């Protein structure tokens, strides 16, 4: 039998404040990855300004296309498809990737694949290790906090979701209170390693019989504590504040994840999204999973694949390619794209 031909996909990601291109082989091997980040720009404003983000994306789009090809040592003729994040994210930002990928598809005749950004985050795992199904993913990022049940590489359903803020968003908001530049997660994580949970912030929805999360109560408790201390001119230990906040976040994420692992007994557990870079969270989840009677394989992608990047989009796109799920030239940005919800979530 002839060997299966390699599939090379050029992928684009521009949903927020990173413009990224990558060439990925067979959905598993990164042949090149270029990430142009705009963090320095948005730090002027304390958060991502959508119009500024869109303007930066278009500045680099043709250059990073050439760089991804050059770094991979490929040219257009070696590629099999072009993939792009088409949602969720900032509409103007998404449109740069979508317009570029469609134009590239027209100019080269290569097929086009539209990828859900969250499916992409989760599929960073496929670049790290072989996923066996069914799998369960904890997706924690700037805009999402979800438990996702994966029946196969394409059929995902959300079994738990945040009712308000996403975990990453909560990190960024309390970071502002502590005077930490956006995006604050990494610094808060580092401080937390050096502090202690002395404030005992509330753990929301821990007892409730569902897989949902809530972080706005925690955020408010944190802000009230900080403001009250300010008013009475008391200096609070920032490292203890960070450790206390992080402990509350991790307790809830770990508890609900473990419960879901016990109920669904997946073969693989995946940690995905920007907050998956969190050291405390990675350590705690590993410890908890080690205690389980039925232990899934654990995939936690390396830090550089946790944040937004095009390699993860190329990984997810490969699965769509194999299933023959292509987009046409009417592909548009969909800022509020969502993975499907499980039946249990729909009432």
């Amino acid at each position, binding site marked *: 039998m002839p060997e299966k031909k390699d599939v090379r996909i050029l992928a684009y990601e521009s949903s927020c404040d990173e*413009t990224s291109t990558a060439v990925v082989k067979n959905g598993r091997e990164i042949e090149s990855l*270029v*990430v*142009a*980040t*705009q963090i*320095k*720009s948005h730090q*002027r*404003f304390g958060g991502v*300004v959508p*119009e*500024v983000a*869109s*303007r*930066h994306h*278009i*500045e*680099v*789009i*043709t*250059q*990073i*296309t*050439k760089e991804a090809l050059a770094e991979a040592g490929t040219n*257009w003729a070696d590629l099999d498809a072009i993939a792009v994040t088409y949602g969720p994210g900032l*509409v*103007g930002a998404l*449109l*740069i990737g*979508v*317009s*570029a990928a*469609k*134009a*590239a598809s*027209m*100019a*080269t005749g290569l097929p086009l694949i539209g990828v859900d950004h969250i499916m992409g985050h989760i599929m960073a795992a496929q670049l790290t290790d072989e996923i066996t199904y069914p799998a369960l993913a904890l997706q924690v990022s700037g805009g999402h906090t979800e438990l996702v049940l994966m029946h196969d590489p394409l059929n995902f359903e959300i079994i738990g979701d945040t009712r308000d803020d996403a975990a990453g968003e909560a990190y960024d908001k309390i970071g502002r209170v502590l005077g930490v530049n956006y995006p604050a997660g990494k610094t808060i994580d580092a401080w937390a390693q050096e502090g202690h949970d002395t404030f005992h912030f509330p753990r929301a929805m821990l007892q409730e019989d569902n897989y949902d999360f809530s972080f706005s109560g925690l955020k408010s408790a944190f802000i009230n504590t900080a403001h009250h201390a300010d008013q009475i001119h008391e200096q609070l230990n920032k490292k203890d504040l960070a450790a206390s906040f992080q402990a509350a976040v991790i307790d809830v994420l770990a508890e609900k994840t473990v419960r879901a692992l016990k109920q669904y007994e997946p073969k693989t557990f995946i940690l995905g999204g920007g907050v998956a870079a969190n050291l405390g969270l990675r350590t705690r989840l590993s410890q908890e999973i080690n205690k389980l009677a039925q232990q899934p394989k654990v995939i936690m992608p390396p830090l550089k694949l946790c944040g937004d990047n095009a390699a993860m989009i190329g990984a997810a796109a490969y699965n769509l390619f194999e299933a023959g799920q292509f987009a046409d*030239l*009417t*592909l*548009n*940005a969909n800022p509020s794209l969502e993975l499907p919800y499980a039946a249990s979530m729909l009432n």
Partner: protein
Amino acid sequence: MKILSISTATSNLSVALTENERTVAAAEETDRRNHSEHLDPLINQLLKQAGWQLADIDRFAVALGPGSYTGLRIGVTTVKMFASILNKELVGLSTLAILADNFAHSDQLVVAALDARNDNFFAGAYIFKNGQPTNVVPDGHYHLDKLLAAIKQAAQEQGKKNVILAGSGLSERSEALQAALPDLSLTFAQDQDNQVHASHLGQLARSAKILDPDQVLPRYLRRTQAEMDWHRKTGKPFGQDSDYVEEV
């Protein structure tokens, strides 16, 4: 020379294929806000109609701005990619020059303007010599009062009494404008003459300067509100775009 011209600057999506002075195929979708969905299929439709391939195009032309920021980026991104991948020429023209070109054979002062809300306009004024536009009120973002003063001055300097106004947001104010410019005789463009047409772009593109696809950006003619607020608050210089984006 075969040229593909695109304008996504306004609600009127316009695409044209031209070969020298001849328009081979052209199409417009009026008031379609979803340019992202319609642009590429429309290009393909015109290519098919003309019996051309995308690779046959010698030069890609785009309305660079001003206009809807999101709209501009759709068109500009598309031609940047086409030109870059196919190794073909790229030119970009002022949206306002293309709009004014609807009156290329007039000897009047032509004011082209796009409504930018709250009595503000992206506007410029042009005169034509041998069908070629000269920008006599520089393309910019103007409050109506400033625009009127600039039109008055340009008309005086160019010795024009008759002024044509085209675009959006002006004809609704025709009486007020005429009252504000009593020494000038104003004519307001009708219907299609208020739209940006890619077929006109295709003509202007023939003598336009060739641009580097990697460097070309929309001409927004206005910084973002966030940047202006930041600048006012901190007094810091805006800096170069390249100061803010880094590869990691």
